[in-house]
């Protein structure tokens, strides 16, 4: 016989959530004046000097990025909890090709995904009769339109860039899924995946209270922020250096709309940076402020989240090389087209 004694410090749940929300809002509004006061009054740096601007950028960006991550990732995770892939695949299985592909790209935004779930997800979709093209639309959109990237883009660049990024990501996912569907590459799926059909599928319904959901979202967010914090700090540090010291002319010459090779260059640069998207965004923010072209910036962000070598390697377990190559090629071409298109339209 066991007696279970759980430590339960019972502060009412709504009180905890309420105070957290209030604390977040207060912190959001005091961050900028506090950073300026600290850099220019307390440290006595001059506004407009290299070092003054760099330090103020750093001091303001750190709390801002942290608050954005903690606040919005918690909310997004909470919303995502209502769209588990187990439910989503049922919605996608019965659709036609067009509706399925568009739906999969859209659901990719709200459905939680980490690259280690790629294999079970892939098998689960195929098993439920979701067509290959639709499955790939989901596999492209889910990591690319990711919450951390979206949140930081929104907070640091404003809603228009964040929405453009999302629209571009959805377009690549829909077109990519459609093309893969057309190529009829079913023979490049490992045979055992087809053999697994019909073995699973009995998804178990979990009953979660609102409190469970909020606790889950918060513990996920805390863990995520703790893991990416060093990269973010390093990214903001480099961003601050660029903001204060790197001359605008240099950035314009390399990353500006006048350099036709900038788009493929940043896409290549982005590949090894996978999973450090969060740390890279403050650097990109500083570069954009110094005259890097918008299309080039978008291509860089998309390549960083969508072209993931670890994910391709993991997917090797379920699909054969030609299909992985097609997947990688289509995504890369899509990103290049988006980059050039935006540079062309804006400048």
């Amino acid at each position, binding site marked *: 016989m066991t007696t279970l004694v759980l430590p339960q410090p019972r502060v009412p749940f709504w009180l905890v959530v309420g105070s957290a929300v209030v604390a977040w809002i207060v912190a959001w509004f005091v961050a900028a004046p506090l950073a300026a006061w600290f850099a220019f009054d307390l440290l006595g740096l001059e506004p407009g000097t290299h070092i003054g601007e760099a330090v103020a950028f750093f001091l303001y960006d750190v709390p801002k990025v942290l608050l954005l991550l903690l606040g919005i990732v918690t909310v997004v995770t909470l919303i995502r909890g209502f769209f588990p892939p187990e439910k989503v695949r049922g919605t996608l299985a019965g659709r036609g090709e067009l509706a399925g592909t568009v739906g999969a790209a859209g659901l990719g935004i709200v459905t939680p995904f980490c690259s280690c779930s790629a294999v*079970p997800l892939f098998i689960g*979709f195929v098993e439920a009769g979701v067509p290959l093209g639709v499955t790939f639309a989901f596999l492209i959109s889910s990591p690319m339109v990711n919450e951390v990237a979206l949140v930081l883009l929104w907070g640091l660049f404003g809603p228009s860039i964040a929405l453009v990024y999302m629209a571009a990501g959805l377009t690549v996912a829909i077109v990519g899924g459609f093309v893969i569907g057309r190529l009829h590459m079913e023979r490049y799926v490992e045979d055992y995946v087809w053999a697994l059909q019909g073995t699973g599928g009995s998804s178990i319904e979990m009953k979660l209270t609102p409190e469970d959901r909020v606790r*889950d979202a918060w*513990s996920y967010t805390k863990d995520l922020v703790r893991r990416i914090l060093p990269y973010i700090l390093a990214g903001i540090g480099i961003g601050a250096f660029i903001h204060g010291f790197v001359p605008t002319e240099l950035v314009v010459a390399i990353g500006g709309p006048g350099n036709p090779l900038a788009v493929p260059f940043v896409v290549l640069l982005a590949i090894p940076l996978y999973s450090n998207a969060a740390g890279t965004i403050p650097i990109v923010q500083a570069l954009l402020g110094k005259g890097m072209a918008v299309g080039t910036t978008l291509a860089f962000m998309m390549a960083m989240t969508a072209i993931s070598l670890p994910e391709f390697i993991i997917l090797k377990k*379920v699909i054969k090389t030609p299909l992985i190559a097609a997947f990688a090629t289509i995504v890369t071409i899509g990103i290049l087209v988006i980059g050039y298109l935006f540079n062309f339209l804006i400048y």
Partner: protein
Amino acid sequence: MKTIEVLGPGCNNCKRLEANAREAVTMAGVDAEVIKVIDYARIMSYGIMSTPGLVIDGKVVSYGRVPSAGDIAAWLSEA
């Protein structure tokens, strides 16, 4: 003797779940063995797609989330 299976290829969430499961065993004071399941075919055979999944004595109790040690301890003493 209870069997706790942690389903997942070994990403960060799977490791957190395994740690919580071990803590829960101590918390609940039950005799239980924690096993990691990394084979995809076996993970899929439980009918889940989102990892990590948690199975107590062959029954799926959660998937796609990392329940707290307290929650797992409660399930252990119920089961």
